[in-house]
C-alpha cells in the first residue's frame, strides 16, 4: 500500500514536471476560466441579477468546464511514441498509475480553482470569507472527486474513436451530486454562514469522492489492459 502511494507520487511528479515545462494545460485552462468569467458578464442581464449573487454556481460551472478541458488530455501526453505502452510495461501497479494521474489532475485543477475564485472576486466583487479554510476544504474535496471520476473516464475516452468529445456524456450525469452540494456549500460560505452549516454537505462530498476513488482504483486496470 505504501509502495503504491510512493509510486503514485512518482507518476504525479513526472506529469507535473512535464506540465511545469510546457504549461500547456494550465495556460489553456487559466485563459478559459478568465474568459468564461468575462463572458458571464454579458450572458447575464445585470439589471436583473448581479453575477456576484449567483457566483457560487458560476464558479462551479466554470470549474467543471475548465476541468473537462484539462482532464480530456490526461493521457494525451503518453500518446506519442508509444509512451503509454512504456508506462504500462514499467513495474508499476495500475492503481499507482491511476492514483498518480488523479493526483496530478487534482493539483492542476486546484490551481485553476484558486484562479477561478480570485477572478470572480476581482470581476464581480464576491466577498471571500474571512476564514478561508472551510471554502478551501469544500473546493479541494470537490476537485479531488471530480479528478477521481474524470481521470477514470478520461482513460476510457482516450481508448475510443470519439476521444474527449465523449467525456461530458459519461461524466456529467454522475457529477450531479458534486455540483449540487459543492455549489450549495460554496454559496453558504460566500454568503457568510458559519462553517458548521455545511458539515452535512461535506460528508456527502466526501462520500462521493471516496466512492469515485474506490471505483477508479478497482476498475482502472480493466480499461488499460491490452
Amino acid at each position, binding site marked *: 500500500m505504501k509502495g503504491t502511494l510512493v509510486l503514485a507520487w512518482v507518476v504525479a511528479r513526472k506529469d507535473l514536471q512535464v506540465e511545469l515545462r510546457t504549461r500547456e494545460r494550465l495556460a489553456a485552462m487559466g485563459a478559459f476560466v478568465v474568459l468564461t468569467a468575462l463572458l458571464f458578464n454579458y450572458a447575464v442581464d445585470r439589471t436583473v441579477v448581479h453575477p456576484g449573487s449567483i457566483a457560487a454556481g458560476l464558479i462551479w460551472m466554470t470549474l467543471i468546464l475548465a476541468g473537462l478541458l484539462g482532464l480530456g488530455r490526461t493521457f494525451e501526453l503518453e500518446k506519442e511514441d508509444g509512451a503509454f505502452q512504456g508506462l504500462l510495461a514499467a513495474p508499476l501497479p495500475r492503481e499507482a498509475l491511476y492514483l498518480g494521474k488523479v493526483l496530478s489532475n487534482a493539483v492542476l485543477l486546484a490551481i485553476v480553482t484558486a484562479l477561478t475564485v480570485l477572478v470572480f472576486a476581482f470581476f464581480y466583487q464576491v466577498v471571500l470569507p474571512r476564514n478561508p479554510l472551510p471554502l478551501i476544504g469544500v473546493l479541494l474535496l470537490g476537485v479531488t472527486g471530480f479528478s477521481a471520476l474524470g481521470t477514470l473516464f478520461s482513460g476510457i475516452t482516450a481508448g475510443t474513436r470519439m476521444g474527449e468529445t465523449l467525456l461530458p456524456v459519461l461524466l456529467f*450525469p454522475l457529477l*450531479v451530486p458534486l455540483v449540487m452540494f459543492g455549489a450549495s456549500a460554496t454559496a453558504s460560505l460566500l454568503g457568510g454562514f458559519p462553517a458548521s452549516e455545511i458539515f452535512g454537505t461535506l460528508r456527502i462530498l466526501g462520500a462521493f469522492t471516496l466512492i469515485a476513488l474506490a471505483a477508479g482504483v478497482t476498475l482502472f486496470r*480493466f480499461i488499460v489492459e491490452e
Partner: protein
Amino acid sequence: MSLGFVKWGALVLGLAGLALTVLFHWQVFFWVPTEASMGIVQRIFYIHLPAAWVAFFAFGIVAICSAVYLWLGIEKLDHAAQAAAEGGMIFTTIVLTSGPLWAKLAWGTWWTWEPRLTLTLLLWFIYLGYFMVRNSTDVPEKGKKFAAVVGIVGALNIPLIHLSVLWFRSLHPQPVVARTDGPQLHPDMLTTVLTALAAWTLVFLSLYLLRYGTARLEAAADRAVAATRSPAPVREGVAP
C-alpha cells in the same frame, strides 16, 4: 443458460406477459375507478410506475453482470449486460415520455425537477454513455470492458444522485405502493398496478432473454464463420 432454455423461457414468459398485459389493459380502461383529484390522466400511472421499476431493475442487471464480467471475463455476462441495457433504455424512454404527459395535466407543466423523474433522465444518459462507449472502439473487446466500467460506476453513483435530487423539494406524489403502514391506494388501483407491474416485468424478461439469445447466436456465428473461412482448424467429424 443454454440457448434452448432461452428459447423456451422467452416463449413462456412472453405468453404469460401478454396474457397479463391484456388483463391489465382491461383493468385500466374498463374496471379501475377514476382517481378523484387527477381524473383520467392518472391512468398513465399504470404504465409509468411499472416502466420505472423495469428501467431500474434492468440497470441492476447491467451493473451486476458487468461487475462479474470484468471479474471473471465470461463473455456471456457481457451479452447479458448489453441486452439488459438495451431494454433498460427502452423502458427509461417510456418513463420519460409518460411522466411529462402526466405532469402537464396533473401539475400544469411538462417538466418538473422532481427527484425520481430527474434521476430517470440521468439514468437515460448513463445508458446512452454505455452504448456510445461500446460502439466507438476499434477493438470490440475494449468497448465491452469500457461499457462495463461505465455501468458499474453509474450504478455506484445512483444512490448518491438519488440523494441529491431528493434534496430538491418534490412535487411528486409520495411513494404510495411501498409504505410501512400499508398501501394508501384504493384496493382496485393497487390490484391494477400490481398486475401491470407483473405484466411489464414478464414482457421485459421475455424480450430480454430473446435479445440475450440473439447476442449469443451472433457471437457463435462470428466464431463459426471465422472457423469455416480459415483452412486450419480441424473439427471432430470432418477431420481428414
